[in-house]
């Protein structure tokens, strides 16, 4: 891997900065030694439990009545046919939302799998089946991150004791790839049709 820098590496590490300063043109290539894996970490964040997602989606504080459903093979096929989205499981976690005994909406918890990510999300629907809100509950990437020795060393070279970096800190923020939310959009499409087919009466 080659690294080209301007300025930023004042924060990221002095070896690179020195190279940049030494040469006149701003494109400089540096081979970063990729020796030794220091830590393997996963990028996973839990945003909500079921209860906190329910509160976030319905802050008016209604009651949630568990109403899980099991789809028949015919229903699964019908959802797949109508939406073009694969129905992986025949069970669906559903809560009927009630305010003073009247239907106030639906709350569904669903999971989608991307190529490298695994997402649990909550979908809140109005009584007539329109999307009220979507909350990601749990997001996991399964790349198995390697944070390498040399890279951390570069990082530390640019740091002072006043600005400590925790080696074992969770990976919370990543820049570098725009992950599409397509799988969640497809999941929502599938659940909207499921509402139409099974919940709407």
């Amino acid at each position, binding site marked *: *891997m080659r690294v080209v820098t301007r300025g930023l590496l004042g924060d990221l590490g002095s070896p690179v900065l020195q190279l940049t300063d030494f040469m006149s043109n701003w494109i400089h290539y540096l081979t970063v030694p990729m020796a030794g894996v220091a830590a393997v970490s996963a990028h996973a964040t839990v945003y909500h439990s079921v209860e906190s997602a329910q509160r976030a989606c319905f802050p008016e504080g209604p009651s949630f009545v568990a109403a899980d459903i099991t789809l028949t093979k015919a229903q699964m096929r019908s959802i797949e046919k109508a939406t073009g989205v694969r129905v992986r499981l025949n069970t669906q976690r559903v809560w009927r939302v009630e305010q003073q005994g009247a239907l106030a909406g639906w709350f569904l918890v669903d999971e989608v799998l991307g190529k490298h990510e695994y997402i649990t999300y909550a979908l809140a629907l109005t009584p007539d089946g329109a999307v009220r809100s979507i909350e990601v509950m749990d997001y996991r990437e399964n790349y198995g991150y390697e944070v390498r020795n040399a890279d951390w060393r570069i990082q530390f070279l640019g740091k002072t004791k006043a600005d400590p970096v925790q080696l074992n800190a969770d990976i919370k*923020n990543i820049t570098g790839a725009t992950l599409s939310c397509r799988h969640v959009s497809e999941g929502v499409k599938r659940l909207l049709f499921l509402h139409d087919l099974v919940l709407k009466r």
Partner: protein
Amino acid sequence: MISCLNAEVRRCRPLLGTFVEVVARGPHPELVQRAVEAAFSEMERVAASMSVHDPESELSRVNASALLRPVAVGNETFHVLTLSLGLARESNGAFDPSVAPILARWGLLPSYLGRRQAGSWSDVRLLPGCRVRFHRPLSLDLGGIAKGYAVDCAVNALRANGACSGLVNAGGDLRAFGNEGEAVHVRNPMSPGSLPFMTTLREAALATSSPCFTQRTYDRGEVSHLVDPRNGQAITRAISVTVQASECWLADALTKVVLNDPACAETLLERYGAEALVLSE
């Protein structure tokens, strides 16, 4: 004294075609929760007026009719168009918001954005009264700047609602505010599981552009969502450009200048007090 770090809220929603995460800290949970809601509302508002995927958006109305007559838009869309065209001029077209017809041809944007013999950014006129006019057939796409702009709006909303510190991350376009430094890792485009760089971001924005995750085949050639506007070719080499700047719209847009014209980027980075990190094979 009430500590500003009593409460932290971290939320994630699908928005702007990606996952948007908002982290905010403040004196008590209700205040922080309200601030986070306001931040998401701001981003939904920007998405609704500036999306090319929504045929009802202000930008879509411009694309549909600005060749025939001047089209009036809201202050905010006009402001982002002004920023876009300003940067297009300053970069001699290395940043160009009019590459939509090419992306439409490759199937990466809706097909109705496709145009034959399309003009470029220099054929767009911004007129008094927030009106937009095209002098040649073209389609504008603010995808290279609006996500960053939405992040800026979200940060402003968090502050205005009393949050003391936090971070908004829209699929890698992110901005941190407050005194808490936020650790941000930079992904290696050649090997997404490896995070070779990390920085602590404080009162600054970071955006990354890389073709490595959107590459696909079109007409037996490789294409991606990144285009060199001067030759209409897709950028398909293994490269990732990260720019740090004071605001996220700027970081977002400058990544395209660094990709397409490094020599010009040097001047612009200096002018805006911005910095770039480029990873390549």
